[in-house]
C-alpha cells in the first residue's frame, strides 16, 4: 500500500487550466441548463496576512443541488480571482444535505482555494446567513462561536451573497482539515 501522492502548489500559472465559463454553473450550454431553483451569486475577496488581495488564486466549489442531493445537479465550479482578489460564481442555492448520524447539514457550498504559496488546497465552507438550520449544523457547531462568522455569507440583495476569505491573521477564515 502506498501513501497518497504528495500535494504540490498549483503555482502562479494554473490559468492554463482556467475556463472562465465554469464559474457560471447555470451556463446555457452547460450540464445544469434548465434545472430549476433559486439562482444565486456567490462573491468574496481573498486576502493574505497583510490584507493584500490574493489575485492569482483558483477557487473551486462543490455543492448539492436545490434538492440537497449531489446527484443530478452538477455542483462544480471554478473561478480565478481578479486583481482585487475577488471571485464570483453563479449557481443555484443548495438544499439541506444529510449529515452523519441522521443529522441535517444546513445548506452550504464547499470552497477549495489553490494558489502560489499554498502547498495544498485550503478548504472551507460557505453557509448562508439567516438560515434556521445553521444553529444545528454539525460542522458549524465544531467552530468556536467567535470565529463562526468566517463561514457565513451575508446577503447583498438580489440573490447575491458575499463571503470574504482571510488566509492568515486577524479574522482568519476557519479552514477545514477534510
Amino acid at each position: 500500500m502506498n501513501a497518497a501522492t504528495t500535494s504540490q502548489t498549483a503555482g502562479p500559472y494554473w490559468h492554463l487550466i482556467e475556463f472562465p465559463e465554469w464559474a457560471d454553473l447555470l451556463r446555457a450550454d452547460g450540464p445544469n441548463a434548465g434545472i430549476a431553483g433559486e439562482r444565486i451569486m456567490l462573491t468574496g475577496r481573498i486576502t493574505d496576512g497583510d490584507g493584500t488581495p490574493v489575485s492569482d488564486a483558483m477557487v473551486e466549489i462543490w455543492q448539492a443541488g436545490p434538492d440537497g442531493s449531489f446527484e443530478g445537479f452538477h455542483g462544480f465550479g471554478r473561478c480565478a480571482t481578479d486583481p482585487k482578489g475577488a471571485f464570483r460564481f453563479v449557481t443555484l442555492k443548495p438544499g439541506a444535505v444529510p449529515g452523519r448520524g441522521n443529522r441535517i447539514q444546513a445548506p452550504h457550498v464547499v470552497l477549495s482555494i489553490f494558489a502560489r504559496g499554498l502547498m495544498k488546497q485550503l478548504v472551507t465552507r460557505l453557509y448562508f446567513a439567516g438560515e434556521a438550520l445553521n444553529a444545528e449544523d454539525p460542522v458549524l457547531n465544531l467552530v468556536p462561536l467567535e470565529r463562526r462568522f468566517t463561514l457565513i455569507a451575508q446577503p447583498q440583495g438580489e440573490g447575491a451573497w458575499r463571503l470574504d476569505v482571510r488566509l492568515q491573521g486577524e479574522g482568519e477564515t476557519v479552514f477545514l482539515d477534510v
Partner: protein
Amino acid sequence: MPDPIPYRYAAVGTQPPYDAPAYGSTHKRHPKQVPLRVPHTLSETTAPRFVPAWYAPHEDLTRVDGKEAVGERIIVAGRVLDEDGRPVAGAMVEVWQANAAGRYNHARDQHDAPLDPNFRGQGRVFTDAEGKYRFTTIRPGAYPWRNHHNAWRPVHIHFGLHGAGAAQRLITQMYFPGDPLLPLDPIFNATPDAAARERLIAQFDLDVTQPEFALGYRFDIVLRGREATPFEAA
C-alpha cells in the same frame, strides 16, 4: 441512510505543511490556526462527475492547428490508484506546463525565453477502467524564479486530479529522474518524507516509449483511500 465511509488521513510527513519557510510565497498565505478536522459527510465523499461530453479531452499537447511544437516529444503514462491499490476509473486529469524553453504560455510569465506558438501547454485526459491515463507532450524546460538568489525550478509538469470523492482532490507536480535541481528546490523538498518525495519523480519506461517517435515516462498517482471497515464489500 448509512454514514459515508470517511477518507483516510495522510501518513505523517507524506504531505507538505502549509507553512514551508524556504518557499517564500507561503509566508503570508499559510493559515496560523490549525485547520479544523471535521467528520466526512456527503460533501466530502461525493465529487463532481466529469464526463468527456462536458469536459473535452485533449491528449496531444505537441501541436496547434496541425503545426508541431519545438522540443523533445515525450509520452507520459501511468495509473491512478487509491491507497488500497484499486484503480480510480473515470478520473479527470488536467496537466499544464512550460514549453521546451522553460516559458509558460501565460501573461504573468516574464522569463526571457521564447514562446512557442505551437505549444499551449495544457491538456486533459480521463482514466480508463484500469485507472490508466496517457498523453503526449514536449519535455518542459527548467526556468528561474525569484524565491532566492539563482533559484531555478526543476523540470516539472503540473497535474490536477478529481477522483470519486471531493476529499481526493489533488494538485501535484511530476518531476523527471536525475534532475540536478531537485535537491535545491524548496517546493519539492517541503514534504518531509523522502519516499513520498521520490514518488513525485517519473520513471523512464521503455514500454511506454514508442519506437521512432518518443521517449516514455511512467508516473503513477495515488489518491486517498477509505478508512478500513469491517463491512467492506468483497
